[in-house]
């Protein structure tokens, strides 16, 4: 049937469009000629050896911030999600809304708010949260926590509560049931929320741009600055490495936890 074929071709083109920039980064990182000239005149691995050290430093900053913000999110978010679903708390809808609202706020606004609030904190307590990894972790927690809470709430909706009843009837106390049955069953949801939170933190530009800087410059901000002021193909090499890493990470996570967890519409 002709329409079927046309549809597949269209779909294919759009998919191509989606992956084009990523492929372009990878391909261009091997290009020997002047930057951003197509077609590439030569093939070289040189750029991979010429990545300036500040980019690697930025990478570690991003990882530290990401891990810190994600760890915070899991530590406070998992109990919160459990309480919201099972606690039958008063004002549960308002509390739910509060915990999930940050996801609806533009990151830029969160960044501006964080910057201005950091100044207030400095004026009041002489505590500087600007250009500090700790400050970035705190600011990123504003959206990593909701990601984890949302994922764990969704996981509980899919949860067959009878398995907890089964464990209780077999003699396990509520506490034991929680740790041996409930938590393992929720592990995939927690993991998918944490992974998503980490990646969003890792990729963030606005908040890190406003709040970070100096020795607390994250990788995306470093690349952002580099793209605007000091463009060299070594950035492409680093970007290719990072993209590759993220893709491998997603692929492995998708295999373990099932891809549908990321497609959370």
């Amino acid at each position: 049937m002709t329409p079927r074929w046309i549809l597949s071709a269209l779909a294919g083109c759009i998919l191509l469009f989606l992956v084009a920039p990523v492929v372009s980064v990878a391909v261009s990182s091997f290009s020997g000629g002047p930057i951003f000239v197509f077609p590439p005149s030569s093939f070289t691995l040189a750029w991979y050896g010429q990545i300036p050290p500040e980019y690697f430093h930025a990478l570690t900053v991003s990882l530290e911030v990401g891990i810190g913000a994600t760890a915070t999110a899991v530590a406070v978010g998992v109990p919160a999600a459990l309480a919201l679903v099972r606690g039958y708390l008063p004002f549960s809808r308002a509390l739910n809304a509060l915990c999930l609202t940050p996801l609806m706020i533009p990151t830029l606004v969160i960044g501006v708010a964080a910057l201005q609030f950091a100044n207030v904190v400095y004026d009041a307590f002489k505590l500087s949260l600007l250009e500090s990894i700790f400050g970035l972790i705190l600011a990123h927690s504003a959206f990593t926590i909701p990601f984890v809470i949302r994922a764990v709430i969704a996981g509980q909706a899919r949860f067959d509560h009878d398995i907890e009843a089964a464990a209780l009837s077999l003699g396990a106390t509520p506490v034991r049931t929680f740790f041996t049955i409930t938590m393992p069953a929720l592990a995939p949801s927690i993991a998918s929320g944490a992974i998503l939170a980490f990646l969003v933190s890792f990729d963030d530009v606005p908040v890190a741009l406003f709040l970070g800087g100096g020795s607390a410059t994250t990788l995306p901000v470093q690349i952002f600055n580099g793209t605007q002021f000091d463009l060299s193909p070594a950035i492409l090499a680093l970007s290719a490495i990072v993209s590759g890493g993220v893709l491998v990470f997603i692929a492995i996570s998708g295999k373990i936890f099932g891809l549908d967890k990321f497609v959370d519409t």
Partner: protein
Amino acid sequence: MSEVILRNVTKKFGEYVAVDRLSLTVREGELVTLLGASGSGKSTCLRMVAGFLRPDAGHVFIGGTDATRLPPYRRNTGMVFQQYALFPHLTVAENVAYGLKVRGLPKQEVKERTLEALNLVHLETLSERRPAQLSGGQKQRVALARAVVIRPSVLLLDEPLSALDLKLRGELQGEIRRVQQRLGTTTLFVTHDQGEALSMSDRVAVMRDGRILQLDTPVALYQKPNCRYVANFVGMTNFLDVVIRGRASSTRSGASRYRATLLFDPAFELDVDGVEDSYAEGETCLLCVRPENVRIAGGALNPLLAVVNKVTFSGDRWYVDCVHSRDTSLVVIVPGSDRVPSTGETVPVSWAPEHAVLLRAETASRAPR
């Protein structure tokens, strides 16, 4: 001793009364089924025995102990759920062993008893699989093994076979009964499927609106229902309104035989057996006779003449819908190999008086002519 006794148990959800002053004794080693439609309160009862719900009034005794206030994990009950409730992150063997590990039994004993339970349900070869890799029937057998391996005082099954297809259901009914009898475990079974209840149970309690209408062996329940609802819920029944005219003659089995006429056709007389002592002359009662006990033949005192309305074939039998008059109709079951009358034919229908049950009229819904 592991009897289960519910004494005057009541459970309300807000204004709604789910279980209403219900009393029941399940004797040791017995399999009692709570049979009823949705909303009858049968699952609520089960969950009160399991400990997931606390009665608002009354007591629950398990094995002589008052378990009313005990949490589920201190009751030594084994429960099988409708959707199996297998632990998804544990293997079959680990699922079955869970209750034993919780009790802190030594590793060797856990291993032996797990294997024993798996053998009992014929699943030894699947012990390392995960629940996601099992079929519905296999999952239910694992659930059963998991519940019995702990040697519970009482086994509770909450509509365990509703999620399975017909053939599988039949197989597993047999499995469950076999395991239950082999272990001699006191068992409470909940279902809405009357065929299941009749085939598996030692006794059946028909429930409605939170009360037990009749508690009897399957045979007694089927042959001598004590009210219209039970007669209708368990199997098919023909209902005829009759008026008592007086005694006929005494028969054996303690019942008296009465002469009665159809309420809407006083000309037609028949003999009925009453189960209670006295029926007043002129009293309106309900006659219940099962379709398979009605014959298309003369031979009785005076057969009832009916016109065949519809004939439906069902493999091993025919369902013959006949009408005597505007208010009196009957369904007759005729064996599939017999000759069956055609639509429009007038046939004589009759039954032996001992095959009919006389019930008091519950509501005077229609005025006699």
